[in-house]
Every structure is written in structure tokens, then in C-alpha cells.
């Protein structure tokens, strides 16, 4: 808990100390994000029918490297960046036609996306933005179990996409704080059940992230 407070203070302190007007950064930048994600209850289907997988919320971490376009760039004002993110959610319950039973194991997504971000600059330090990301994700089902019996253990690489919105706060000309929401999804990965059957699993997540970017 103390660690969390320290982090919040560390992030907020620069806000209090910074000047009211900042020049808009352009050029390369790197950044990092931490946040929480909710993997939505997933419809899963095999040749015997459908069942659902319910997961627990979990933390996520991201690293980005990108380029800030200079003001009045003909392409538009915004950024383009490459983002790596890891999300891992624990399976909580599995629902069949017979009812809910306990599940266990993890579903982990490692994604690499190319994000295009449209930033709405104004005369304040706050700059709202929207973003669209496209790329790929490796989604791994680690030792998924139903009532202690094996369900699946495997991975799949699938097309992934992300829609996001949020707000930047310019701490300095080169340092900014980012609070955002991301909707991340992929085409359904296909896994193999312990009995050899293949099943598809929906993958939709809602994510809240807080991070910092350092420009050069």
C-alpha cells in the first residue's frame, strides 16, 4: 500500500511544480504504462456447444516507443507508436449448461500493436486524444482447469486491435503523464481441449492505464 502511495506522489509532484505553459513536443519518445484490465466473460465454442469462461481482473504493463508529429504536420497532429503490452487473467468460473463450476489457470496476452493517436491540442497542458491500434497478440492458455480437471494448455497468435481514449498532461516540454482507457480485442484464438477438441474463445478486455512518456 505504501508503495502505491509513493508512486502516486512521485507522479503528481511534477504536476505541482511545473510551469503553466509548455511548448509542444515533437520527435521521438518512449514511455511506460501500468494499469488494470478486465477480461470480459468469454463465449467459448466447440463442436459440442458453447460454454463461458469468467476471469478475474488483473494488472497490465505496457512499453511504447513512438514519434510525436510536429504542430501543423500535414498528416495531422498526433503520434504514431509501437506498443508492447502484457495482460494475464486468472480463470475464475466456467459455465456449462449444467451450471457454474470452479475454474483455474491463466490466459495471458502478449500484444504488439502499431498505434495511431489523434491528439486535440489546446492552450492548456491537457490534451485529450483518441487512438486506434492494429497488430498481433500471442494468447496463451496456461493450465486451464475445470474443477481440477484439465481443460486446455496452449497458445495461439491472432490479429489484435485496440481502441483507446484518454488525456495527456504535459509536465515539461519532454515529459508527459497519460491517463487513458483502452479497449483491446482480438479475433478469437483457437485452443485445444484436453480431450482433443478445438474450441474458440472470445477475447475482449477493458483497460485503464496510467503512464509517462519521455520525449527526446
Amino acid at each position, binding site marked *: 500500500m505504501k508503495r502505491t502511495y509513493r508512486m502516486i506522489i512521485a507522479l503528481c509532484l511534477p504536476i505541482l511544480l511545473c510551469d503553466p505553459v509548455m511548448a509542444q513536443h515533437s520527435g521521438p519518445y518512449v514511455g511506460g504504462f501500468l494499469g488494470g484490465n478486465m477480461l*470480459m*466473460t*468469454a*463465449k467459448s*465454442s*466447440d463442436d*459440442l*456447444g*458453447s*460454454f*463461458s469462461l*469468467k476471469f478475474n481482473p488483473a494488472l497490465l504493463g505496457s512499453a511504447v516507443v513512438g514519434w510525436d508529429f510536429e504542430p501543423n504536420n500535414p498528416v*495531422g497532429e498526433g503520434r504514431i507508436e509501437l506498443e508492447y503490452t502484457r495482460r494475464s487473467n486468472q480463470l475464475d468460473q*466456467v*459455465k*456449462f*449448461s*449444467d*451450471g457454474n*463450476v470452479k475454474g483455474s489457470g491463466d490466459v495471458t496476452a502478449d500484444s504488439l500493436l502499431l498505434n495511431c493517436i*489523434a491528439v*486535440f491540442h489546446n492552450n492548456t497542458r491537457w490534451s485529450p486524444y*483518441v487512438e*486506434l491500434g492494429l497488430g498481433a497478440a500471442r494468447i496463451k492458455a496456461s493450465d486451464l482447469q*475445470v*474443477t481440477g*480437471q*484439465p*481443460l486446455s494448455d496452449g497458445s495461439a497468435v491472432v490479429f489484435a486491435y485496440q*481502441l483507446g*481514449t484518454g488525456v495527456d498532461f504535459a509536465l515539461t516540454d519532454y515529459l508527459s503523464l497519460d491517463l487513458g482507457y483502452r*479497449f483491446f*480485442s482480438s479475433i478469437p484464438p483457437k485452443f485445444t481441449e*484436453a*480431450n482433443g477438441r478445438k474450441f474458440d474463445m*472470445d477475447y*475482449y478486455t*477493458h483497460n485503464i492505464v496510467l503512464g509517462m512518456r519521455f520525449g527526446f
Partner: protein
Amino acid sequence: MTKLLWPVFFVVMLLSGCGWNGTPTRENDFTPLTSIRIVADYSTIAAHTSTKLKVIGNFSGLFTRDITSQAVWSSGSPTVAGFVTASSPSRVSGLIPGTAVLTATVGSISNTFTLTVSSATITSITVTPATPSVANGLSIQFMAMGTFSGNTKQDITFDATWRSSNAAVASVGDTESNRGFAQALTVGETTISATLDGVPGSTLLTVTEPVLQSITVTPANPSILTLSTTTFTATGNYSNGTTADITSLVTWASSDSGVATITSTSNKASTLTQGTTTISATLVNASGKPVTGTATLKVTGGNLTGITISPANSTLVKNNIVRITATGSFSNGAKRDITGAVEWSVTNGTVANVTVPVSGENLAWLSAMATSPASTAITAKSGSVTPGTANLAVTTPVLQSITISPTSLDLPAGTSNRFSVTAAFNDSTAQDVTVSAEWTSNAVAKATVGNIGLAKGRVIGVVAGSATISAVYGGLTVTAPVTVSTRTIKATNGLTISGTTTIVSGNQATFTAMASYTDGTTKDVTEDTTWSIDNKYVAILADSTNQPGQVVAVNTGTAILTAKFGGVTQTVTVTVP
């Protein structure tokens, strides 16, 4: 870019929501089965009867499920009770009095059930439901409840022998799969009986007239233009498999009277504005149950925003007649002839008259009736849209002369062309009096000339030869020669259709047909061609009688427009985007 991104963002949010909340269809076969339980309606049955057993599986104490179909059955005393019904492996039959331990096995899990077969004898049988009535074509499942010595009761539907006293009225099943299941075959009465060990039970089954089960409304998914009409047909589907046209018996309704109206007793729907409405046909059947069939009517072509009358400001000599049209402007930018869809009126009926168009046609005539100079306003109205107006002045000058145009015609046999007559008056005005003139041909075997309505002045070449066409107006006569020749249409590319093939819904487009002859000549034969379209829900002919070659786009899709002339057929594909 950002304007596009936001809608996409919110659509994805809505679609994803909070995850899947549907009903799973897959059974849990991951959790191990740990025990089973055998359930039966009766633990004691009489000899010569049977009962069905069920196996309920318990999966690790977490849930239970009926797994009867997975069980393998055995009897510890097969001479007392045995599983002898091939089509129903879980049905056990009592053979002789005694006790039998029955075993069900699923995988490696087993359990037992003790069944007693008594020596009770059947005393009576009650067949239920008692004295039912069933409509011809429908079916009913009977049940036989046996009363045994000792006053015990047992369902013996499966064990009894079933008979129908009149199998032509209703049959009743007596096999493992259908015992007691009766099928009504024709109107009448029959006794359904169930017999066990010589003891019968029965009831009277009455088969009534077939009952209406459903209604099919056709066309099921029509698309038509605003300010149009279309008719529907209701077909009743009866319990005995027969059908009947019940169009005049049903009650008609439209779910959205702003889009289209239909009166309860009429099958004709009138369209008003763009949109979709459900047309329903309802009839209460003999059982007192309302039965409804529906069709989805899509109304296209834009909403009417304005009406223009042509000619807008005209002067007509008394007794002269001209064609009058109303063109509609629509909300989607379309324009089309709506002469037949508007309500015509003349402010001063003694000055002029407008004929009411025949249903489905766009032909109206304006007649000057005043005997002295006068004027009047003409109005074309539709709904609440501002009516279209035109002014007409009727004059009474003295006729001076008449001329015919063209002065001669040269026609291939089987084609037509038109003469017109212009009258000159003493007030220095001239007027087309083609429709008011009387037309004759001196050689109808060679060439005919129309003398009614729109056909006036239209000459049709019959066979090679010559004829003189006369037009009489106001006591004056003009003549013009017609030469009819025999020409042969080219075998290849003898008929060409031209016109814009992509038409926006609601717009009217003109197509022309041109015939090419072996002598190198060509002739516009649009009026002489027979036009047709294969899909009226995509495009229609504006008025096949009075507007040859005119096509109105209806709804998105493609349709084939066919032109037939002189034994030659040509087609084009009309696209409505």
C-alpha cells in the same frame, strides 16, 4: 479521421458490453462422474406391465444430470424382470411375480434398484383424455391408466394394445414408438380402446373439420414506390394439410399507417412515405384462436415534396384536348410521373375538365369546355404536400387553316410514326389539335391510323404499299401520303436498346429501341416494342400502355429489361444502387 474513430469506438463498446451473457449449450464433461442414482415411477409393477427407469448422475457433488442414455442395464433376475424393449433400453418389463435387482452402469460407476413384480391382475382401464375432439389433420396422445386388484393404479400406456374402431376417421399407434398416439384422418367419430390381458378401456374420439393453423401472406417481402398501390393474397394453411385462398375473409392491417395504409376489408395497400411496415392478415379459427400471417412491405423512392403540372400555363381553343401530366419531386432528389397518383381538380368545371386516369396508368386529358373566353386553375393534390397548380385560358377564335406535319411518312411494315395537326386562328395564334382531329386512312390494309386518345395521328405500317392519311378539324381537311416498305431486321444486332442503366430509386428513365435493317437503314421502334422487366421489386415500367420504354427504379438490386420487336429480343441490365 477522428470523426470516424468515435462512432467506431462506441460501436465496439456496445458490441463488447460486459462479456457474453448467453445460455451455454455444452454439457460439462470435464468434471468426473462420482455416483449415479436410479429413479422410477413405480417400485412395484404388475406382471405383464413395464416402467421406465432414469439414471441421474452426480458429478463430484457439484451438479447432477440425467444420463439415462449412457447407462447399460442388467437384471439380476431376468425371468422376473427384464430389459426387453429394444427401442427403449431403460424400460423394464415385469414377467412373473417376484423381486429383481436391476443394475445401471455408466463407465465404471454402478448402482442398483430393487423392483418388485406383483401378481396383481388388471380390473379396469381408463383412457384419457376422455371424449376429446380433434381437428382433422391433428394428433393426440392417449394414456391408459390401469386399475389392478388391490386397487393399485399404474400407467399401462406402453403395455396395452391400442385399437381404433374406425381407422378411416383416426388411426392409433400400437408399436413401441407410438402406442396411444392417434392421428385424425377425416371428419367423424371413432372409439379408441386400450386392452391389457383381455380387459378393455375406451373413449370416443371426435374428429372435427380441419382448423386454420397459419396464414401465408404473399408477396412476402415486396418493395414498391411511394404513392403506389399493391395487393396482397392470404392463403390459409389448415390442419389437414389443405390450403385455401382466404384473402376476402381475413382482417388486414398495416403496422405503420404513416408508411402504408390498408383497410381492414381490402387487400390493397397504398403507400405514403418511405419506410417499412408489416402487413398482417388475421382470422379467428374454428377453435377461437386468432391466426395471423404477415408480409414485410418496404416503401422506397423518396417522400413527395412537390408537384409540378405540365403544361403549367396554357391556352386552349374551345373543345381542344391536350395531355396533362403531374411530375412529383421527392425527398431523395428523384422525379417521376405521378399523373395517375394525384387527385385532379378544376376550379371552374364549366371552363375545363381533367379526365381521371385509369388505375395503374399515367394518362390524363385536359379538355377546354368553355364556349366563351374564360380561365380556370387546375390543381393536382396528394396528401398534405403543397398541391401543384396550373392556369388554363380558353379562347374562342375563328379557325383559319390547318396543316399536317410531317408532310409524308415512309415506314417499314410493322412500325409506326406520328402525324400532328396544327390549326391557325384569326387571332394569329396556332395550336396543336392532333387529339381533337378525326383521323382516317384510305387504305387500312396498307397503313392504319389511330383515332382514339393517345393513338390519334399514330400511323402503323401494315404491308408494303401506299395510303393517304386524312385529318379533319373544324370542317377543314388535310392529307398526307404514307409509303410502307418491306425491310428485314438484321439477324445480329438488329435491335439496340439505349438509355441510362443505373437509376436511383424513385427516378424515371427513358429507354429507346432502335431497329437496324439489312438495307442499312434504322428506325426508332420504341413505341412498337414490347417492354418487360423481370423483377418488379427492383424496377418497373412507368406505364406500359402510355409510356413505352419508361422505367422507374424501385429498390436496390438489378433487373433485366427486355425489349421484343419483329421477332428480335434484346435485354439490358438495370441497376438500382
